[in-house]
């Protein structure tokens, strides 16, 4: 057990931090995200720095790292509130492709690493919440090895700029069955595919997709028909873990911005940091931050465990991170006072990013409920006879 970064990981983190501070500051991207613009130049820079390749295996054009590298990058993205669709494309879509079919991954992922292919994962639906296997979008048979797709997808992260969509569809079974889910890779301009771009409150962009009889064949299959659950779970796990790392970056930065503000802002003739109520609030914020960071580390240790254990571990992590994040970012605004609720100042944007994170891949409450169900499923121990009185037996 060793929680220190390797030299390479430290370099990756430092170079990401330097680049993002210089190129992706809040001020620089004020206009771009408002209009949903996407900087191809910056995306190429991400590719050139190896960020898109960092967590992918070498035979797929990657650098051979694991989820830790993506988590480090995401933590930096959280600190800087970067709006580029790294998570949607570089984690969710990339990991889905990787786990769906290795041969296809070898074809597709090198292009993704180079920044040319921008697939978005169109898996989330209005009733998904955090349920991975919830897929109601229908793939209706339309001749041999052909289907037509009917239904809606929501919160397709990076969907506004994606040039491909990985759409999960129901080819068999009911809406919540693990079997019978199939992935199709669609072109952005596929016939029958309607896209509406949506700006999120943190200035990232997603898309809503409406599929009305989009015709697909086995050519469009990503992985095997009916068998996509495992790939989706794999992507979900990577998605959750990196999302929680991003949240840690968000919390950490929000905490230190607030600390600096307390040391400079004066009221009643003194700087705010002299008030014990505020000192103690900040101490609580630090505890929450470090507790959350710890539970993200814990999730890393469970990544290769059997499905039920790792999902439970991720539920522990997402629940804690969601709660800590809401507290830290909420209090960050509170300790700033009025300036904290202005669009111009940074701290409110940390709160907004945290709010989006809370609603992605299952809220804290959802994950707590998952854990509660596990608690109830446990066996009742053998009944011990109540003693009537007197000595313990």
């Amino acid at each position, binding site marked *: 057990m060793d929680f220190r970064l390797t030299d390479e990981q430290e370099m990756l983190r430092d170079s990401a931090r330097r680049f993002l501070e210089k190129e992706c500051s809040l001020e620089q991207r004020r206009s771009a995200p408002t209009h949903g613009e996407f900087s191809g130049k910056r995306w190429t820079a991400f590719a050139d720095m190896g960020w898109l390749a960092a967590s992918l295996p070498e035979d797929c054009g990657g650098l051979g790292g694991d989820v830790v590298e993506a988590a480090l990058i995401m933590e930096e993205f959280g600190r800087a509130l970067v709006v580029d669709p790294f998570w949607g494309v570089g984690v969710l879509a990339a990991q889905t492709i990787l786990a769906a079919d290795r041969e296809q991954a070898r074809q597709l992922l090198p292009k993704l690493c180079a920044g040319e292919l921008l697939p978005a994962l169109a898996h989330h639906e209005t009733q998904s919440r955090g349920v991975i296997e919830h897929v109601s979008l229908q793939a209706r048979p339309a001749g041999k090895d052909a289907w037509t797709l009917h239904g809606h997808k929501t919160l397709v992260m990076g969907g506004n700029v994606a040039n491909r969509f990985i759409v999960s569809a129901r080819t068999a079974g009911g809406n919540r069955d693990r079997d019978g889910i199939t992935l199709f890779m669609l072109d952005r301009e596929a016939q029958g595919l309607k896209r509406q771009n949506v700006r999120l409150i943190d200035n990232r962009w997603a898309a809503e997709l409406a599929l009305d009889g989009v015709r697909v064949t086995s050519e469009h299959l990503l992985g095997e028909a009916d068998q996509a659950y495992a790939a989706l779970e794999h992507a979900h796990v990577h998605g959750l873990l990196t999302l929680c790392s991003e949240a840690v970056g968000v919390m950490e930065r929000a905490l230190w911005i607030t600390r600096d503000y307390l040391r400079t802002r004066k009221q009643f003739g003194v700087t705010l940091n002299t008030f014990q109520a505020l*000192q103690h609030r900040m*101490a609580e914020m630090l505890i929450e931050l470090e507790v959350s960071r710890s539970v993200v580390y814990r999730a890393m240790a469970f990544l290769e465990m059997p499905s039920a254990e790792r999902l439970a571990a991720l539920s522990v992590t997402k629940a804690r991170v969601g709660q800590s994040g809401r507290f830290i970012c909420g209090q960050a605004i509170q300790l700033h006072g009025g300036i904290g609720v202005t669009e111009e100042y940074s701290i409110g944007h940390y709160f907004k990013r945290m709010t989006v994170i809370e609603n992605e891949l299952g809220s804290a409450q959802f994950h707590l*409920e998952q854990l509660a169900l596990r*608690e109830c499923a446990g066996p009742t121990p053998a009944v011990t006879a109540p003693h009537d009185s007197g000595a*313990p037996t």
Partner: protein
Amino acid sequence: MDFKLDPADEAFRREVRAFLREHLPPDLAKRGASGFHPVRADQRRWQRTLYDRGWGAPNWPTQYGGTGWSHLRQFIFDEECALAGAPATDNGGLRMFAPVIYTYASDELKARLLPGILKGELYWGQGFSEPNAGSDLASLSARAIRDCDHYIVNGHKIWTTGAHTCDIIGLLVKTQPDAKQRGISFLCVEPGAAGITIRPIIDIGEAHSLNEVFFDNVRVPVSNLLGEENKGWTYAKAVLENERATSAEVPLNKRKLAQLRMIARQERSDGHRIIDLPGFAPRLAQLEVDLRALEWLTLRALTEKSEGTCLPYGSLLKVRGSELVQRIGELTIEALEQYGTYVYAEPGEDPDAKPVWPPGPDYAPGVTADFMYRRAATIYGGANEVQRSIIARSFLEL
């Protein structure tokens, strides 16, 4: 980064587990798992067993008879012992005082004190707090005046855990009354010495572990001075730091949460298991979430400690660990309903005592007494408010 336990550490855990299965007597485990304060006779028996195995002092270096284990192995050991219900070993002697003794005391004092602690024959009481020196410990006023080769001690200590059953008290006294921190010395005092009066303090769990200790012209040999005169504050801080290192009490919290889980599956409400009531399981799950987070914060503290770090882990762990033990207690009492309200008297120091208890399942006695006692968890070892001030000042530089 490597997030997995080393296979050698996993093997170590299995070794400890096997040892406990074989050598922890059921009567000790039963009393150890109850919430009542450990019985000294049990502690002696268990410490001797550990000593014979070479595991008497998990946190000491080998030169003094310790195991020389890493912080992580100590944690694994503590965790397995707690889950098995082993009696709590002498935290004061082994963890708080001994490191200060082997670091600062004279060879003569080391030879006199360490072997007894190791074998479970010498138990410690902490004579630090006074009625007017709690969180503000340095304002203590117990006085020691040098008289040839003795100190004459006068003063009043409070919250001295186990003073009535211990063999030696680590006592903080003023040797220079005008200086604050720099006038404090550290004396090792036998509680049977002439002039010492011990008065029990019964806590709100109706149990006796705390005491007041009065010193009236007590003569303490100068050879019982630990380290140098007027350097006591340094030693006291080291003692308190040793206390905080394990202050999340993750092993204890794990045992208590496992107990709560068992009780919630056992107790019923109108035919339903408590755990199946709609509001209950999410609260249990929340405790599990917070315990796991605390466990991994502890693992970070244990593995990073050897590197030297600036994060104030002791304070972080103290705050959340003490809150957690109280929250687990609250839910356990709730799950026990009537049995959470009955008085199950503490059996006391006699391990063969057969107290007359009201009806109830055999997991009930001790739960409420401990729940009451643990209201002190957020106070002892430096109140949580003091910890928050430490975090704010030392780390956040507010």
